[in-house]
């Protein structure tokens, strides 16, 4: 078996006077894989990326990226990785083309190659027309695309993307997803992608690790994780609110009743989605008229809920202050 592109054992990071941001995590990401690192704000995603990209020394544990130790072989690691960190770190006074030329020279590309590679990447991320405009005039999506292009200048085999689509509109997000998928499928690039968006992890990732309070609470393929939490849920709302109790009785025959918002009734179907027709027939037989009916397949949010007892959406809002990314470098001092 090939050596993992990214491997971590008991990797941990503790901040002075702060929480244990990353708490002894194990990771193994195969070459060419897209690994989604999913978790709420403050869960430890960015701290993990900073350690794996050599920007932040771990407190304990080990990690190897591209076959090199992140602590003792930092320069070798850096030549093999590209990274677009959480903040699109661009100079507002430089143009897109100037950014790429600077990055190419710092990555020690031969002079003749710098112009060719810059033009190629500008075309690939759709910024050719905006290439000579200052970055301060770019939209959020354009900045993210330029950020991705900069991470790719030296054709890295491993790419770290820290919440690459946060704040982007749907169109920009979809375009970025397509490019990331293409990189993995066509170029064989290993992608380590952190996100707080369930859909992003579901659509993009070959495997997902769910992190909460610095610990990985679940790991597997999106389909496998969802299968673990089990069966689909049926949600129904009676047309007449007075029928709610009878609806609970009917649905209760098909599985455990689970909480449901807005006056509806929900049950986890023991027989899976094949129970759907029987549920409708049973409600009809009891003369319960239905206003709204929906079959809800398990999502990664259900996985998160099952593992942590909380919903992923909004879970990290109260914890965000615990791990401001801009403090990372200061905290190492």
């Amino acid at each position: 078996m090939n050596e993992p592109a990214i491997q971590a054992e008991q990797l941990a990071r503790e901040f002075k006077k702060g929480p244990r941001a990353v708490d002894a995590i194990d990771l193994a990401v195969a070459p060419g894989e897209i690994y989604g690192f999913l978790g709420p704000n403050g869960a430890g995603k960015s701290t993990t990326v900073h350690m794996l990209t050599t920007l932040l020394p771990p407190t304990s544990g080990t990690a190897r990226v591209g076959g090199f130790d992140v602590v003792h072989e930092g320069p070798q690691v850096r030549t093999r990785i590209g990274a677009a960190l959480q903040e699109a770190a661009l100079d507002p006074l430089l143009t897109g083309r100037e950014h790429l030329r600077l990055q190419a020279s710092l990555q020690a590309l031969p002079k003749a190659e710098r112009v060719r590679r810059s033009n190629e990447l500008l075309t690939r991320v759709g910024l050719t027309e905006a290439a000579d405009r200052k970055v301060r005039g770019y939209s959020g999506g354009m900045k993210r695309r330029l950020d991705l292009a900069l991470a790719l200048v030296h054709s890295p085999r491993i790419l770290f993307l820290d919440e690459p689509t946060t704040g982007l509109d749907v169109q920009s997000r979809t375009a970025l997803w397509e490019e990331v998928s293409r990189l993995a499928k066509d170029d064989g690039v290993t992608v380590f992608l952190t996100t707080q968006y369930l859909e992003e992890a579901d659509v993009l990732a070959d495997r997902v690790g769910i992190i909460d309070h610095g610990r990985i609470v679940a790991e597997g393929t999106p389909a496998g994780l969802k299968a673990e939490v089990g069966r689909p849920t049926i949600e129904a709302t009676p047309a007449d609110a007075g029928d709610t109790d009878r609806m609970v009785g009917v649905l209760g025959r098909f599985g455990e009743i689970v909480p449901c918002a807005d006056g509806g009734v929900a049950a986890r179907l023991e027989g899976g989605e094949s129970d759907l027709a029987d549920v409708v027939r049973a409600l009809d037989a009891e003369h319960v008229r239905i206003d709204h009916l929906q079959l809800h397949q398990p999502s990664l949010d259900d996985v998160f809920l099952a593992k942590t007892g909380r919903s992923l959406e909004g879970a990290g809002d109260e914890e965000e202050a615990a791990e401001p990314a801009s403090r990372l470098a200061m905290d190492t001092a």
Partner: protein
Amino acid sequence: MTGFADQVVQLSRRSVVRTLRQPANVVSALLFPMFLLAVNSGGLKAETHLPGFPTNSFVAFALAVPFIQGALFATMNAGTDLARDIQTGFLNRLSLTPMRGIAVLAGQLGGVMALGLLQAVVYLSVGLIIGVRLASGPAGVVVLFAFMVLVTLAFGAFGAFAALRTGSGEAVQSLFPVFFVFLFISSMNIPRNLIDATWFRDLATANPVSYLLEAVRSLIILGWDGQALALGFGISVVLVIVALTLASWALRVRMARS
């Protein structure tokens, strides 16, 4: 060109381009010292009648001030730009390249020195236009420019140190008035031997900025004064060594990559 030299050139170019694209910074660095020169020359020209005043042109005497004041602006520019790089995460981007950390500092300061030289050319040109003649001649111009590059490097490195330690542009800008105090308690407006108040004369004598001013002034009004130049260059070199040592240490701490 070696990899390191290429990196320094590219980062210096970025530093210059970035400064030139902020016209407010360039204009204030060029105009404010000239404005102060005009005000002081108008208000203090009677000083030339003091016995022992080294020249009968107060403009020639005061022209040294814009050079040092311009170098102070370099402190702010170097520090503020570097602090912004830290705040935006651009320094992290640079840290993720194989570039040697010291190239960031060298590049930033290379750009600041280039702009310091440009400022010196402008100040000297204005001086020549309003009738000041360098007593040290064309060779003095070369020495003056070399000296200004050295002084700008020293002040710029102090600005970079402040930025790297604090990561805050505001903190760097708060240094500016502190440096200005050094300028005002120096021999900027009157030769030290003509300062009447003993306490002020002592402060000006202890203040290294006085010797930087006197080195520039000697080239303009005296010609070749070996002692003034030796003190000016000597103090500049010490300041450069101290500031670069502090800035390099702060850079190592800031770029705590493995």
